[in-house]
């Protein structure tokens, strides 16, 4: 996966709690056998009406955010189904960072596996960001900081192992193969 460290962009504000993965990528789009090509289906039923025309009020159709690589959402983002197609569509659409006060566990893990940086800030901090009309930020994973164009600095926590994986873009499976001895030892011990 692509390594990630510094990302600078206008934020895309999605001010909604409990956004589930059925909304992020609807099931009719899960039939592909590739990992790519899901970006055009991101938030499909919120983006387009039944005739396929863009819905004016939806944030992804707002011209001001069209080059945005940072999505900001509210609590419990990515809840529901474990479909990794959700982060795939987010990544394929062009986002590299998602900021929210909390994420569903499986979605959070899936982001990490795809080089998307999920950042947890407090509810107050996220609401402050979402309250601005247009807001540019600079994300720095190494320093664990999000710096707003108004100079406000938001710090975030991240598991050190996950951080290393994202910074380096390492393939986790190759890493695990370094533990072949331990895996074999376990299988022998348990007589598997």
């Amino acid at each position, binding site marked *: 996966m692509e390594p990630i460290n510094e990302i600078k962009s206008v934020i895309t504000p999605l001010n*909604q*709690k*409990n956004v*589930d993965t*059925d*909304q992020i990528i*609807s*099931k*009719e789009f*899960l*039939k*592909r*056998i*590739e*990992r790519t090509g899901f970006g055009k289906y991101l938030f499909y*039923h919120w983006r387009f009406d*039944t005739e396929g025309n863009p819905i004016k009020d939806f944030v992804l159709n707002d011209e001001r955010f069209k080059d945005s690589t940072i999505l900001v959402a*509210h*609590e*419990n983002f990515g*809840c*529901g*189904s*474990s*479909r*990794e*197609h959700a*982060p795939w569509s987010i990544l394929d659409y062009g986002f590299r960072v998602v900021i929210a006060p*909390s*994420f*569903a*566990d*499986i979605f959070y*893990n*899936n982001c990490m*596996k*795809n080089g998307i940086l999920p950042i947890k800030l407090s509810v107050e901090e996220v609401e402050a960001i979402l309250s601005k009309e247009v807001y540019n930020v600079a994300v720095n994973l190494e320093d664990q900081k999000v710096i707003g164009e108004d100079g406000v600095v938001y710090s975030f926590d991240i*598991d*050190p*192992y996950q951080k290393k994986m994202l910074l380096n873009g390492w393939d*986790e*499976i190759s890493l*695990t*193969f370094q*533990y072949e001895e*331990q*895996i074999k030892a*376990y*299988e022998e011990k*348990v007589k*598997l």
Partner: protein
Amino acid sequence: MAKTIIEKIWDEHIVYEEEGKPDLLYIDLHLLHEVTSPQAFEGLRLNNRKVRRPDLCYATMDHNVPTRNREQIKDVIARKQISTLQENCEEFGVPLANMDHPDQGIVHIIGPELGLTQPGKTIVCGDSHTSTHGAFGAIAFGIGTSEVEHVLSTQTLWQAKPKTMEIKVTGELGYGVAAKDIILAIISKFGIDMGTGYIVEYTGEAIRKLTMEERMTICNMSIEAGARAGLISPDETTVEFLRGREHVPAGEAFEQEAARWLALASDEGATYDKTVEISADEIEPFVTWGTNPSMGSGVSQNIPYTSDFTETSDQQAHEKALAYMGLEEGMALEDIQISNVFIGSCTNARLSDLRTAASVVEGCKVHPNVKAIVVPGSKTVKKQAEQEGLDKVFLDAGFEWRESGCSMCLAMNDDIVPAGEHCASTSNRNFEGRQGAGSRTHLMSPAMAAAAAIEGHIVDIRKFQLYLAGV
């Protein structure tokens, strides 16, 4: 030191641990289906890797398969996904219950049926309802496709140790109240993210009294409360369910395994990071009226008013949900008109669920405004139901009797709820568009869905006999 079952199983499965890293856990059982596996197998192919332990894998086709006219799958892309799984399993040596196989069914129904699911195991699948298997006292959780590839290649997963939560269900279920109502009540009371970061264990006298199928219903929806996994400690009920099943040892070996399983139960005095409690005595038959599983109430209640919520964001979420569902605040749940009924899904498509639904509808007719389908959870469930004549009961009442699959739970196949229509469903999610774009889902128990099919609106099952008598 007193340990919870979660800690016992976790500690037993550590292949490698190191400060500052997640634990490397061994995976005892890897279940697969056609939607979340193709990219994983492709990854193996691209990197020239084999499946490390095909003998610890088991695959089936469930999400995409039609529940009728299976010989000709009309959807070209679905057909491709299904044939891809067939090819992948052949190439990599993974056992597969395909559509012709007698054991085919919804993956979380066939695992326990076949005795693959056992206490003390770590079980994963590219599907969030993998939590179902926790009913046996296993650590079972859903994973994404990248992790599916990781397990196929290494039979392990890096996992940060979650916190533990006890959900204690005291008291006794009242008449007409089902296991489904327990989990819907828990999610409604505590919220859809109460379990985020936790593995939960359901305890208490009300849980102990449940059958294995009822326990599976509860554990199935642990993910809807945000939990990574949900377990119930094994007991004699667990042992008796597994006795004689295909992948379980026999004779003396079984007795030894059974003793080991029972010893996995949480120790007296074990502590959890958090404990919450709910009384079964207070639980009513439940119905969801909104667009996530927590937006539900007891059937005798009315839909909350927007002004009942204090936070602006909650008020807005409430209004948005009601607008989508085409419902009014303050409305009585029993006034909600239903035009579709789905009895099925990994939550409630087992034999006991079908027996319950059949006993409700026997001698009645499906309401003329309603299209109702029953989708057995597996070929085995279907066969057993037919042996008992349940299919005849449903067909005589005017239900459609289908082949096994995930069906209308998520409408990836051709069982779709049309836009704007309301469906009484025994499934597990009522998100916007879940059962079809613009569809309106109401989650409930099999008895409640069966009664709604007859009356054409939400009905309090406890009063159903009175309705029939014209009271």
